């Protein structure tokens, strides 16, 4: 029996509708570009070491006309005062012999090791330590996107699981989850963040992901529960029950694919939301640790630089984030229209 061409399922139809939506396609390309950059950064081919100080402190962007007159404090190599000849006020230096041996071995080492040459201007300017803003931007997008995406996955997975079980089984299971939902939404977001951050103690990207994930599931929960309530009495589910499909199978094999469009939209909304929350978390002090850079940490660093006329780090981080968030939100809209077209007309 020749198997004819596998006909387009709902997903392929949705994909075709998406391709026709110009704005959707443009935003899709932008998002893919960002993910490309992140993958390259993850692999280490792009912006491998952002901590290297290549520029002068607050090196202005090369293309900026005001570059010349911005006066940077001249980097004067300081001479290291000799640490030995100081007056010991009659005391004994326990390491006297070591220092003596050292000076014998390296007689001509006076003063500081020569500083590597630093560039006066950088493509997108430099920050206070002279790190290149462009490399920081790339590494920052890797962290921010990673945090946003993984946290969104955690929140959506939790929300879907709770929503499915609550919506499908109902009665006391539903009441229990609603109680949990009630408690989590009642507590002010701020205090919840502090509480969870305090519990998780160690600072790190994982902490941020857990904070966002554990506070973000409520939105998805409410929607998925509503969808399950609607679908569980639909005829195709009753029919599946009639032929002997178990509860689990009905819940995850039958209903889940049919509500997946809601989950997908919520996932992308969460990604956008969490990228923006990471900035606020950095402001509150729960941001990324010191050896990691993210848009949030860059924005917070640049917070005081704007006054000093050093606007490029703020502009770069803000622009990068704005473009991604806009593209992602437009993609979500296009996705939502493509997945359930009846909303369109």
């Amino acid at each position, binding site marked *: *029996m020749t*198997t*004819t061409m*596998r*006909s*387009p*399922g*709902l997903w392929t139809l949705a994909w*075709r*509708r998406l391709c*026709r939506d110009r704005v959707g396609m443009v935003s899709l390309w932008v998002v893919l570009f960002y993910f490309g950059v992140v993958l390259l950064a993850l692999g280490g081919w792009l912006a491998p070491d952002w901590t290297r100080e290549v520029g002068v402190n607050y090196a202005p962007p090369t293309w900026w006309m005001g570059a010349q007159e911005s006066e940077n404090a001249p980097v004067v190599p300081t001479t290291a005062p000799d640490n030995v000849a100081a007056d010991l006020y009659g005391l004994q230096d326990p390491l006297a012999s070591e220092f003596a041996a050292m000076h014998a071995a390296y007689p001509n080492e006076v003063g500081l090791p020569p500083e590597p040459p630093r560039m006066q201007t950088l493509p997108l300017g430099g920050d206070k330590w002279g790190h290149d803003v462009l490399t920081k931007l790339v590494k920052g997008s890797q962290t921010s996107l990673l945090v946003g995406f993984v946290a969104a996955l955690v929140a959506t997975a939790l929300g879907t699981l709770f929503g499915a079980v609550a919506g499908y089984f109902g009665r006391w299971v539903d009441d229990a989850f609603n109680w949990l939902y009630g408690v989590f939404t009642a507590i002010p977001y701020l205090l919840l963040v502090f509480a969870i951050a305090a519990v998780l103690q160690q600072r790190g990207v994982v902490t941020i992901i857990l904070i966002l994930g554990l506070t973000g599931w409520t939105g998805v929960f409410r929607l998925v529960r509503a969808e399950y309530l609607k679908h569980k009495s*639909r*005829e*195709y589910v*009753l*029919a*599946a*029950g*009639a*032929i*002997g*499909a178990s509860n689990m199978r009905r819940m995850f094999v*039958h209903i889940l*694919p*049919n509500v997946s469009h809601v989950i997908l939209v919520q996932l992308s909304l969460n990604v956008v939301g969490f990228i923006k929350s990471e900035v606020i978390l950095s402001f509150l002090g729960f941001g990324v640790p010191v050896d990691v850079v993210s848009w949030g940490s860059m924005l917070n660093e640049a917070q005081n630089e704007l006054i000093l006329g050093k606007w490029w780090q703020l502009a770069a981080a803000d622009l990068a984030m704005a473009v991604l968030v806009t593209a992602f939100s437009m993609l979500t809209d296009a996705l939502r229209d493509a997945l359930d077209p009846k909303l369109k*007309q």
Partner: protein
Amino acid sequence: MNTPNSSLLSIRHLQIGFKLQGEPLFSAVSGVSFEVPQRSTVALVGESGSGKSVTALSILGLLPKTITRIDPQSEILWQGQNLLHSTQAQLRAVRGKEISIIFQEPMSSLNPVFTVGDQLIEGLHLHLGLSQRQANARAVELLHEVGIPEPLRRMGAYPHQLSGGQQQRVMIAMAIGCEPKLLIADEPTTALDVTIQRQILDLIADLQQRLHMSVLFITHDLTLVGEIADQVVVMKSGLVREAGLVKDVFHAPQDAYTRALLACRPPLHGRPHRLRVIDDFMSEGQNPVGAGVGVGVEVGVGVRPHAGSDPYPYLHPYPMRGLTPPDDILLDVRDIKKDFRIPHGLWGHRLFHAVKGATFQLARGKTVGIVGESGSGKTTLGLVLMGLHAANGGSALFEGHDLLKPLSSDTLAMKRRIQIVFQNPYASLNPRFTVEQILMEPLMLHGIGENAAERGALMRQLLLRVGLPVDSLYRYPHEFSGGQRQRIAIARCLTVKPEILICDESVSALDVSVQAQVLNLLKDLQDEFHMSYIFISHDLAVVRYMSDQILVMSEGEVVEQGDADTVFDHPQHAYTQKLLAAIPNRGQTPPGV
């Protein structure tokens, strides 16, 4: 200037297409012309997808502007004015004042958050400029005119507080508020029960006389046309197949499609062995134009009536149906009860008795029909038997096991032997499964067939048996028509070789022509596999055709029970009599056959 032959509305070579973004232009109406004379009722008849509703809506310009493409030459002349080219202001002056319309779903057509009175007054204000007091009085008068009890009290009621019939009456009151010259009724009674349908039809006919207005009545049910219309226009796939006076068309249908439509309805008297299907007629005439997949008309590929039968078998009387003693009883249902708890007051709740006790026996190879209006508990009874609802009393013995008891260890085996086919073809199949996955699931669950090859063969054989092409295995439900989807649902039930099949309104949602094909399929399967059916429906003609025994239910009670023919020919209970009386043109035998 008024047209010479004093016709109120004339539609000339109307051509309408819909252009969805990215998809080719889909032509719904491709060249329709007909006239609506003064003070007369014209019926526009056709199956779903025939373009009748689109034509009606285009008259008042109610089609979604962004995607509608109307051919420039089309003309809709109303008192010399072409409505298609008139400005918004001109159109608004006509809408509701000179032409008004009522729709199929009264519940959703009324604004849920405004009272009946407000919605009535709005039209009066707009067109007649009545003061608040005058408009109020006129509104009460209108409600009284359309037969709403205590009109004054009903003015303040909200739509959801009225019954289906009353809501339609309010719609009619709103429509005739400004005494229009033409009333367009787009399938006004399809969603209503047959008894209420009768009242609405009488009301429209009475109003038409009293207000000297014309009515353009759109329906897919030919039996209605016979009773209320003066002229009829038969449409199919956007074309007018035939038009003329009712008595001419009914008695001497020129067009083959018209003849087919007239014959497909199961007759109320006598029971043909098999129903006539479109094919039987179409094979005589040329093939109908534009019959694509998914358009109402069914292309029955590969279905041949049972081998060896003569071309018009439907005429021979079929052996009397009914319970003949030697049949062995498969299912013995005794006094089933089902109550629902509805929360009421602080903590308490009151009980709604959906099924107050039903007792019947189902013999192997026979069919028990359950008929009743919506809300009579017939569907609940079916779902209880299927175990999808827990019963509150009674028993259903099936080979010694009581289906109603909580499921014991060998439930999976028991579950296999009783299956159900639902009403809505679009909802009973999982949209994200291919047909192959839909059929494979029951086979896997019940371990039928050792390996994939054997299961594949089984599936292909079943598809052929229900009259579907083999390659439909790899297609998704949204690519099939309503009738084809019901066939897939039936195939799914057959995979587990059930002994009892519950058909819950399985054909109600299908077009008449398609209905006939599915009913024939069910009968063939019953003969071949000796399955017994529990056939639930509100359509008396269909139930009579299918069942040996009949239960008539009303408000959860079985009011009458017995062999099909005796119940239909000599109804004892008043409710059954009322039901039978409400069936349109019950008197004449199907003309022109």
